[in-house]
């Protein structure tokens, strides 16, 4: 699978990652090499896997509020009066 620079840019946008031009070119080349290896999977006969289901569904606990020992301000990069501070988003 060849990853072009445009394709790498599209994926970087989905992944919320900033790259400069040189890093993007390098990433596209590395992804191409790794995905070319992974493309061996295209040759596997998976018809026998059709009947398999995941081993067990992931069990989920009840979604009820619990106690939260955290002081969220302690690790926050920007905090004000009970809120995480972020750049203005309305009208962006």
């Amino acid at each position, binding site marked *: 699978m060849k990853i072009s620079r445009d394709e790498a840019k599209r994926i970087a946008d989905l992944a919320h990652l*900033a790259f400069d031009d040189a890093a993007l070119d390098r990433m596209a080349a590395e992804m191409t090499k790794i995905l070319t*290896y992974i493309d061996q999977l295209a040759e596997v006969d998976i018809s026998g896997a059709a009947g398999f289901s995941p081993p067990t569904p992931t069990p989920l606990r009840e979604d009820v509020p619990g106690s939260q020992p955290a002081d*969220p301000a302690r690790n926050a990069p920007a905090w004000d009066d009970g809120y995480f501070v972020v750049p203005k988003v309305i009208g962006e």
Partner: protein
Amino acid sequence: MSDTVASALRAIAELNPRLNAVLRVNENAPEGRPIALKDNIVTTDMPTSCASRILPGFVSPFDATVVSRLRAAGWSIVAKTNLDEFAMGSSTEHSAFGVTRNPWNLDCVAGGSSGGSAAAVAARMVPAALGSETGGSVRQPAALCGVIGLKPTYGRVSRNGLVAFASGLDQIGIVTKTARECAELLGVIAGHDPLDSTSSARPVDDYTADCGAGVRGLRFGVVREAVEKLEGEVRANFEAALDVLRRGGGIVEEASVPAIGHAIAVYYIVANAEASANLSRFDGVRYGHRSAGGGTLKELYFRSRGEGFGDEVKRRIMLGTFALSAGYYDSYYGRAQAVRALMRADFSSAFEKFDYLLTPTTPEPAFRIGAKTDDPLSMYLSDIFTAPANLVGIPAIAVPSGFSKERLPLSLQIMAPHFGERALFRAAAFFEGETGYAMSRAPFSPL
């Protein structure tokens, strides 16, 4: 051996400047049996870095479940160990805080991602350490450093407080000098935890019970597809290990697990897909590094992540995002899961005939620092024998099996069916008792 907190702290102070196995010590650690934790397991009394620049100064508001259990059982957490950033790597060369060196040869890697934990035990800074496994990150460094490394069954140990990499594969593992110590520690940290819904309710076994029982009559399957391409001293060492089991009365025969050859391809789709989702939480808003660049909220996300994550982490997020993106989901993620299902079926069939499956833990001994950093794919292939156990969820243990010509450790991997840890320790303890390699002393350790 550093069996007290004071002696552990002394050994770390003496050896760590050269090894870089430890990122942080707790000078105020309480009395107890000293243990080190990979620095992606959270504690309230030390920061947790994940060896990343994206988490400067982060201190968890809670202890991981394994930490609470260790403390209750009288263990004292004296240090946090080095790792590849977010546990992504096989050499610790992807740590933001420098590579960990191998106590058997300082020019070689200690393996990874739990390289710090493996090197710390091999250098006898601490008698035991915890690491984490997603594709071999405890067994591979344990093999390269000549110590015992266990990956328990998926769900055997709570992941609460282990910073998530790939939640469907992650499992906390153990590094020790001996199989018995490893078994004792598993008894401490295993068990159901309401805070990890994937942890198993199955009762915790007496893992040391069969450590002296030998292997007479037990059936060992040698995974043909994994060992047919082995060469040179790794092959010779592996065959010598099989002879040890045979001499003990073990029945050693060829086994077939056809899909095992696709493990790395499957792994790098499944693990990275999960990682791309799990690591979306590091966005510079609630904790961790926030870019000083300003701009919109979206620009804040992009810049904080772009500045905070290292190259390998970005590569994996990119690959995972690709595999889950529209147009590629079925042909990559869906197909990888289908091949994983084939692999699971292959292992189930093999375990109908065998009590254990065997491979070397790694295809080669510790490699030179820098040898693979420019070629991510060759680094990934370091995990070719270990990743299958993660993909199918079974327990596996790395046991020292001798040395290469350059006096670098080699290792035997023993795999067992789900929740077969007690049997795993039985075979490992036998092998260790017969060979004595576990008692070998690395050149770079205290006298």
